[in-house]
């Protein structure tokens, strides 16, 4: 048990480092390249010998960003620009933006204009993932990205890319197992631990991460299944894998059995085929399932995916945890809510901003919601 705690503490330590300290604490010989979205194929960056380093909306007191952005932007965008302007991301050698929403698009331009990092790349993922024409375009765009990486970081050999794809697939497989454990053994792995495990992934060397993850799984696999008495919930929203949210849900008597978070289970949908050309495989994976509401895969994609996943996970309620001002999510919300209602699945909408400051107001609402769902 001690070993389990020390593994979890290590992941927690990584997850809670401030970005300004990360440069000196974490990095091995891999040069860190920043990115925001799962639309960036991390495997390519890893295969070139660099570290894909995900910017995840850290807590930040805003003092610089007001001179560059209007206030109505989501926390992810505001906090990232804030710490960037403060120089806390100067350890990054480059940044990769992928095309998603209007706010991110604007951020990319503002970011480039500061001319602070050695390089920046805009990976233009198609918005329409429902058309025959998207695939060749997207493949050409991934190839352009590969060319850029090779020019600026290092060669991506077919062998290295295949190895990277295998590594990331293994991580996905293991994280999926962690999700399973959360369902059967929620008390063994608290929500906060779980959030930290997920978060740490994006900040550290993936070989090292995979090593820690498999050690942890090995220990968890010896635990006996127990009957859970927490209310099973599904969490939908942005990149909000912050321990406090998960703790609040648990304190209220709920447990997150699955999610649709940008930093969470959505990553699992990016399982990559290993039996075909790797670039083709990277291309296909983005077009084969619904990933996020900034993309169009048909008018009902989001609704159908949500209902299916909530039912599969056996959740009895859904919490929408949205960053304030995230248009893509807020546009979809009313129809998602109605669709859940027709299936008699209650939902709760929570608007969050900085994870460090918005917890007080959430507590009462989460308690009331979970209370309503608890068996009498």
């Amino acid at each position, binding site marked *: 048990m001690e070993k389990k705690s020390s593994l979890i503490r290590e992941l927690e330590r990584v997850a809670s480092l401030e970005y300004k300290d990360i440069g000196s604490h974490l990095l091995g010989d891999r040069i860190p390249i920043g990115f925001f979205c799962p639309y960036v194929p991390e495997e390519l960056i890893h295969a070139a010998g660099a570290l894909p380093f995900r910017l995840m909306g850290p807590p930040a007191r805003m003092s610089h960003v007001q*001179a*560059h*952005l*209007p206030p*109505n*932007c989501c926390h992810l965008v505001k906090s990232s620009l804030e710490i960037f302007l403060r120089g806390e991301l100067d350890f990054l050698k480059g940044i990769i933006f992928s*095309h*998603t*929403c*209007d*706010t991110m*698009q*604007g*951020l*990319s*331009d*503002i970011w*480039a*204009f500061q001319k602070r990092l050695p390089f920046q790349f*805009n990976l*233009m993922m*198609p*918005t*329409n993932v*429902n*058309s*025959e*024409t*998207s695939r*060749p*375009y997207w493949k*050409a*765009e991934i190839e*352009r990205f590969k060319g850029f990486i090779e020019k600026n970081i290092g060669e991506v050999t077919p062998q290295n890319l295949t190895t990277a794809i295998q590594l990331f697939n293994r991580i996905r497989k293991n994280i999926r197992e962690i999700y399973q454990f959360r369902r059967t053994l929620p008390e063994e792995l608290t929500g906060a631990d779980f959030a930290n495990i997920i978060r740490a992934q994006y900040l550290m060397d993936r070989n090292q991460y995979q090593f820690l993850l498999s050690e942890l799984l090995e220990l968890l696999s010896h635990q006996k299944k127990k009957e859970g008495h927490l209310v099973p919930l599904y969490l939908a929203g942005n990149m909000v894998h912050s321990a406090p949210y998960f703790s609040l849900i648990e304190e209220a008597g709920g447990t997150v059995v699955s999610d649709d978070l940008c930093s969470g289970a959505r990553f699992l949908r990016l399982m990559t085929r290993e039996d075909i050309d790797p670039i083709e495989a990277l291309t296909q994976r983005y077009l084969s399932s619904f990933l996020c*509401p*900034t993309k*169009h895969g048909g*008018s*009902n994609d989001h609704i159908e995916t949500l209902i299916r996943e909530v039912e599969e996970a056996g959740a009895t309620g859904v919490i929408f945890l949205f960053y*304030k*001002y995230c*248009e*893509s999510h*807020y*546009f*979809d*919300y*009313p*129809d998602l*809510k109605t669709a859940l209602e027709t299936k008699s699945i209650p939902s709760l909408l929570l608007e969050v901003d900085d994870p460090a400051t918005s917890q007080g107001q959430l507590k009462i609402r989460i308690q009331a919601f979970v209370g309503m769902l608890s068996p009498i």
Partner: protein
Amino acid sequence: MVEKELQNNPYRKIDSTSAYRRLMTAYYFMVKHPAWFGKKVAWITSGGPVEPLYAMGVLPFYPENYGAMCGASRMSPSLCEAAEQKGYSHDLCSYALTDIGSFFTGKGPIGRLPKPDFLVCGNNICGTVIKWYEIQARALRVPLFFLDTPFFHDELHQHNLRYVEKQMGEYIAFLEDQMKRPFLEKRFKKVASRSFEAISLWREILDLSRNQPAPFAAFDAFIHMAPIVTLRGTRWAVRYYQKLKRELEERVKKGLGAFAREEIRLVWDNIPIWYDIRNLSKLLSSNGAVLVADTYTSAWAMEEPDLTYSLDGLARAYATIHLNRGLGYKMQKIATLIEKFGAHGFIMHSNRSCKPYSLGQYDMRREVTRLTGKPGLIIEADHTDSRSYSPQQVEKQILIFLDIIRNKQQGST
């Protein structure tokens, strides 16, 4: 006070306005009663390729243009509220909220919106429209065609262009399927040539304001732009702009401006504040200031139209419009407008519910001033929803800004 001062600087009414009104009334009449004319109706985004629709005999309806009407007639706040009651966030684009609210309530300047047979959405203006059109496709249970035009931050890549070109082919196939008839190249070329004619006329009209005094203020352009948006590709638009151009050329010949007095020339960035156009126009003109150019209406004044009138040319044109391009282009564009139109400064509307237009404006203001030496002012508002607008504060900011320009002018003489 403003009213009184305005008498010292009278506005010259544009005679063609009555023809404009007749034209738009006729258009809205047709689009409200398509069956009477044996037509189908498609809702389309303002940056969507309309020419294939007209070529197939489909009437386009522009929810954004309609949103502007609701904004100008001050109906937006209540329509937005209706959408918010259905769970839509107050922070979403107020054109979208207005349209959704109007759909739910059946209210608005033309009453219930014309029911579309299908929807055509192009994301060359923003990502909002994708979500908005998905919502309406579900609510109205009609097919949606989506034209994906990847944003280009700095370079336009060949594979990017090929992608849009191929989708034009899909668009035509979609239309043929909806209309159960073939797409006729000849008809399309005719429509495209009319469209380009109207675009050229519109550009020439806007360019007339390079003259001093400017015969046509940006506030006029905000009104008279409706045909270039909605009727681009028709004979009506061409005829109307020929008429308007003649009238304005006459003004230039006589040395007449939109206002009698023109001391300060300004460029406007972003969508107009529709519900406050009149007040702002009065405030500026009573202080001798005129908006002579803007980035919004000039988005429909393409610089290099493709004269082969091909679908590939159309793809390129729609993939490269103002809002689909990066900050560097937008900065250069304002700087060029300032230069070309001999402006003394620029006003940027930081539009709380339109991100693609508004993000980057702070950096843009500094850079444009660095490039041109002209001061810029940022005012906070929303294009249609007046609920978070504070007119007194904006008025104060504008007056201070005009003083700065005036002082600069005096300093340099």
